[in-house]
């Protein structure tokens, strides 16, 4: 069976909406140091805790097998590396096609900061924006940090082939149930 791209999925039944995952995501990608005093830019996480009435849950990239964001990107800045869908942010021109294409709203445009100051484009006089989405913490040895810091263990790494296999095995019992005589 093919190995499809793993991705991180939140559990709405466990999530308490605390946003520790968002903070950890930003810190892990952008901050040297582990305390709040080291954050010198606004926080731009790659996963988005979303609230619908009584339920909260983080929403993030599924690393789609036929990623619409990659197809939509004008600059071909979104590419597949192994089983991850990544954005080459230097190529991004902020066209917003990926924002529209993504069925989950998992991509955002965020400003770039150097040394704590927002980068302003020379002629346009406005902040430079680039596409930002979950990269499965691809430069982090231990993998996704959001999963580690969630106090409720509401995030997990889904490995689709394992998911399917486990479900198939559980389904055998249901079939036996149908044919019980």
């Amino acid at each position, binding site marked *: 069976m093919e190995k499809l791209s793993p991705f991180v999925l939140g559990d709405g039944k466990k999530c308490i909406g*605390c946003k520790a995952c*968002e903070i950890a995501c930003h810190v892990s990608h952008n901050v040297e140091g582990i305390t709040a*005093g080291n954050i010198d830019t606004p926080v731009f996480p790659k996963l988005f805790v979303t609230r619908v009435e009584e339920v*909260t849950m983080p929403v993030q990239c599924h690393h789609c097998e036929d990623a619409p964001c990659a197809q939509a990107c004008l600059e071909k800045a979104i590419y597949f590396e192994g089983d991850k869908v990544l954005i080459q942010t230097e190529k991004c021109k902020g066209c917003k096609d990926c924002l529209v294409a993504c069925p989950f709203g998992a991509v955002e445009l965020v400003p770039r900061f150097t040394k704590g100051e927002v980068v302003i484009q020379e002629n346009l006089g406005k902040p430079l924006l680039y596409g930002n989405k979950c990269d499965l913490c691809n430069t982090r040895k231990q993998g996704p940090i959001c999963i580690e810091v969630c106090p409720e263990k509401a995030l997990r790494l889904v490995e689709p082939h394992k998911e399917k296999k486990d479900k198939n095995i559980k389904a055998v019992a249901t079939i036996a149930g149908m044919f019980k005589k």
Partner: protein
Amino acid sequence: MQYTIEIDQELCTGCRRCTDVCPVGAIGGPEGMPVEINYDKCCFCGQCVQICSAYQEYKSDTSKPREIKIKERGLLESVKEPLFAAHNMGHGREVWQALHNPDVVTMVQCAPAVRVGLAEDFGMESGELVAGKMITALRKLGFDKVYDTNFTADLTIMEEGSELIKRIQENGVLPMFTSCCPAWVKYVEQEHFDIQANLSTCKSPQQMAGALFKTYGTQVDKIDPKKVVSVSVMPCTAKKFEASRSEMKASGCQDVDLVLTTRELANLIKHAGIDFKKLEPSQPDSVLGAYTGAGHIFGVTGGVMEAALRTGYELITGKALDDINILDVRYSEGVKRATIQVGDLAVKTVVVAGLANVAPILEEIKNGTADFHFVEVMACPQGCISGGGQPKVLLENERKEVYASRSQSMYKHDEELPLRKSHDNPEVAKLYKDFLGKPLGHKSHELLHTHYVRRG
């Protein structure tokens, strides 16, 4: 802001992580709604501030933009870190103004735990000891006198040690509880006023220093006490409340005018454009700055106990301890009991780390089964190094390690210092000789001891 700690209702997501860490059950509210603090129960320990991860998003549609919130929280405009729902009052702006006011004399003291936490807000290693750089930074900021809370920690041992010995020898109220943790004191005043006589009458080192700044300090340097702005830097949020207590004006005016947390000091240093990492170390000013290892370890759980024993042992037996490191009282994870043989007396000690853990001890007192002499109570999980005002650890999976690094650093500094017993502090001896007289004397009672107030 009205209270030392508040929860921004616009930013709170109702996740209740603060409710879980609050040691006194002061936070709550309806399910799924922002939580609120019950100020009849809150002790301002600030653990909620440390754990809160509900931050204000970049383009959030809150009723007040970030700039207004920063101002309302008393933070300097240059602060870049995110604003979280649970937060404490800030005094950075006021301190900055005082530092640039030519008509005032600014005196500052720093608590022990600040010097093992401060570096973290500059991207340095967790628990890195920066005692010297901290003093230099304070001078560069423009403080006229850079003193040290560790000095008055040594002084507290002299006063509190004498008080304990007196209570033991004269059948006074026992067990005696430490009184340097203002969250613990407020808790007693609110919930257990019946044991207020068990609290040591000693002020905390912060308040002793404040009282001395504007009396002894101004006398020595011939300054008008009314011109002094007394500032402290604390790992603690409850110290802001403590400084504002109405009885804390032994000097005639408020003994401590402004309290900054460790985090606020880092903000101030950055605001002034000081490159903290490159600073050369320096020493505090005399006459209220010299300290021993005993005064320094106040900042970690078991530290006050150990400092008291190092001095108490010598005062009673006339000899020094075989091993100055009293490991039996260190690293409490809740309630740690130990019996230390002091001459003929088996002194039974209890070290409580984390305010919620004091409950069984109070039970024993109420039942009449309490057999211990001296109890150290710290509201915060590992003592002041894990205080509400310390650099805020953002990754929960690192918190334990960070606290461990800070604790280890505290003991390392103690080991490296030439003097490790409070009674060996020459400036403390000079203070008694030139000003106070003797421990528990008239002047000490006037300036260094306090009383408690029933609340609620």
